[in-house]
């Protein structure tokens, strides 16, 4: 079933690849920040199509991967409470906590429901008035407005049994921490697509100004990603450091102001811990006082012991772009999608999961 457009896309891709080859002189190291980009790059086998002088490293743009183990443990503890229904996006189900996972708790009888949207979780709360329905809020700025919407609705409709555990994080502060690292030597950033739809490309300007690293907001089609890479190479060639938008059809300078208002109305930033990156100032979101009655952290007792990283796990360094999954001693041996040790493997957008699923332990 070939459409005319298929031929056009093949031709476009060949053209972009030629342009890329023509303008690369010295080796460059580019980071794709967003987990969805990592997945797309692997799914289409893009790495092999690029000239060898271009190295792609994956960044910390996988919200599940950067959620500290302690927070997973909190969710697991909550799932064990009688009368609690945990609602969550599918990504979290198999993430290993210190000694269990939501999937395992479900097998033991916990009520854990995978939902597609926050409104679905709210519906579950409405249909189960005698249970406490808790939504696990994981995700960056793309997801946060959807959680805010559900909370605003719960507030307006007087729903008393809906709670949110906010593990949400913000991308730009993490990028700053990343760029401040010694030895990373990034030539350019492929900036996240959908996060940027919400926050706008202007939010990254300080990265270009302070760290002199060019950034391009890319879409998710293979053509988008290759175009974004080409735009970065052109800037590098001209020794520029600007923030550009390749993903013009969805992203603007200012972003989605209404969605931004939703976020700031319901949440406020605070310094939070990122797995692998440590504590980053003003990088996490918690519920504002006005929404305290929906705050799972306040309502439930979520005391859990400090969690240590599993021995040998390199997730932190992988997230920071310092190591590749192949450099981790556990990759493909003790740590695999069926038996994940670290979150990079179990999250469907985790770098290690992408490598494993699309490359195995061989260089394809």
């Amino acid at each position, binding site marked *: 079933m070939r459409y005319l457009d298929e031929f056009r896309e093949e031709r476009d891709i060949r053209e972009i690849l030629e342009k890329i080859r023509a303008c690369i002189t010295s080796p460059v190291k580019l980071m794709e920040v967003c987990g969805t980009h990592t997945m797309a790059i692997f799914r289409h086998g893009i790495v092999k199509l690029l000239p060898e002088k271009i190295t792609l490293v994956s960044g910390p743009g996988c919200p599940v991967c950067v959620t500290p183990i302690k927070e997973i443990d909190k969710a697991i503890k909550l799932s064990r409470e009688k009368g609690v229904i945990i609602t969550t996006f599918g990504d979290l189900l198999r993430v290993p906590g210190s000694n269990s996972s939501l999937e395992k708790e479900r097998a033991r009888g916990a009520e854990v429901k995978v939902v*597609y949207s926050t409104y679905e979780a709210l519906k579950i709360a409405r249909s189960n008035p005698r249970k406490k329905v808790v939504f696990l809020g994981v995700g960056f700025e793309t997801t946060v407005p959807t959680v805010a919407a559900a909370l605003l609705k719960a507030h307006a409709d007087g729903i008393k049994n809906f709670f949110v555990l906010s593990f949400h994080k913000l991308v730009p502060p993490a990028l700053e921490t990343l760029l401040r690292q010694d030895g990373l030597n990034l030539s350019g950033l492929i900036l996240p697509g959908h996060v940027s739809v919400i926050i706008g490309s202007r939010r990254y300007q300080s990265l270009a100004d302070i760290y002199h690293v060019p950034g391009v907001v890319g879409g998710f089609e*293979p053509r988008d990603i290759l175009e974004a890479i080409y735009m970065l190479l052109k800037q590098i060639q001209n020794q520029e450091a600007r923030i550009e938008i390749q993903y013009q059809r969805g992203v603007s300078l200012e972003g989605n102001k209404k969605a931004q208002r939703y976020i700031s109305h319901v949440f406020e930033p605070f310094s939070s811990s990122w797995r692998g990156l440590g504590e980053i100032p003003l990088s996490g979101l918690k519920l504002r006082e006005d929404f305290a009655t929906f705050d799972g952290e306040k309502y439930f007792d979520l005391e859990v012991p400090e969690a240590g990283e599993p021995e040998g796990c390199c997730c932190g360094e992988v997230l920071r772009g310092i190591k590749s999954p192949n450099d981790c001693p556990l990759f493909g041996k003790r740590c695999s999608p069926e038996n994940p040790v670290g979150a990079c493997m179990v999250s469907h957008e985790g770098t290690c999961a992408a490598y494993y699923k699309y490359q195995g332990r061989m260089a394809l």
Partner: protein
Amino acid sequence: MIKERRDKRILLAHGSGGKLSYELIEEVFAPYFENPILNQFNDQAILPIEGIDLAFSTDTYVVSPIFFPGGDIGKLAICGTVNDLAMGGAIPLYLSVGFILEEGFPVGDLKKILRSMAEAAKEAKVTIVTGDTKVVNKGSADGIFINTTGIGVRKKGIDIGGDKARVGDKVIVSGFIGDHGMAILLMREGLEFQGEVKSDCAPLNRLVSQMLDTSSNIHVLRDPTRGGVATVLNEIALRSLVGIRLEEEKIPVREEVRAACEILGLDPLYLANEGKLLAIVGKEDAEKILETIKNNPYGKNAEIIGEVVEDYPRKVFMKTRIGGTRLVDMLVGEQLPRIC
């Protein structure tokens, strides 16, 4: 490895047909039942008895929802076992059926299911010769579970099995993939759809007979049920110790299924099919066999989607539509609808 897990409980993922199911069978079940026939791990057992090759297969159906566009659990139960026998190159003849009914299950629904089963058996030309029924307390079963066990006969000289793929062979799929898996998922997710995603549930024994009449160069036949095309091809690659190379743009997927996959974040290569087969055949006869399949009503959209190669033995990999290469791994657990 299941052996290494500290807490050993069965997870839903163990039933999905992917890696975990594979592990469960190899590491937990197989050690107790080891024998040369079972160790082949085909969907059917070929039993040489008194000069006849008897084919023997069993399957249990627990699908929910019980009724879905394109069929129901009864039709599935008949076609599933008929197909398992056919995939061994055998002619299915007789079926037994076992029912576990939950207390409170509507008799009207049971009759609908039985009617489906009768129709499917008639089309497949198999006879249901014996059966059993049990009723369990409310809550102990999901409405109705059905087991079907079938026997058939395989002509002498037919040599088909998961370990018979050879370098140079071509890989054929008999039509659109993912229809059944998606039809079930759409019902569960409550997505409405215009255009139709119906289960492709169908008996394929007549198609297989036609293929075997066309050529004896057929090495592997499998129906990609739970775990999908990706999982089945991986199993074959492992058993035959070969690599399998697919071409993404050749793989037939219905537009609605493609779209639904995007919306839910799924990959059609891992969705179940109940009326499709994968055939790995000698390359000289590939076009001829493809023609035969296309002439059968259940094979109209068949395509050659890849070939068996020497590179990367035991792995399945794919040339992507933009010319890149990626690995096509086995399904690990359930495919979950996901969000960033």
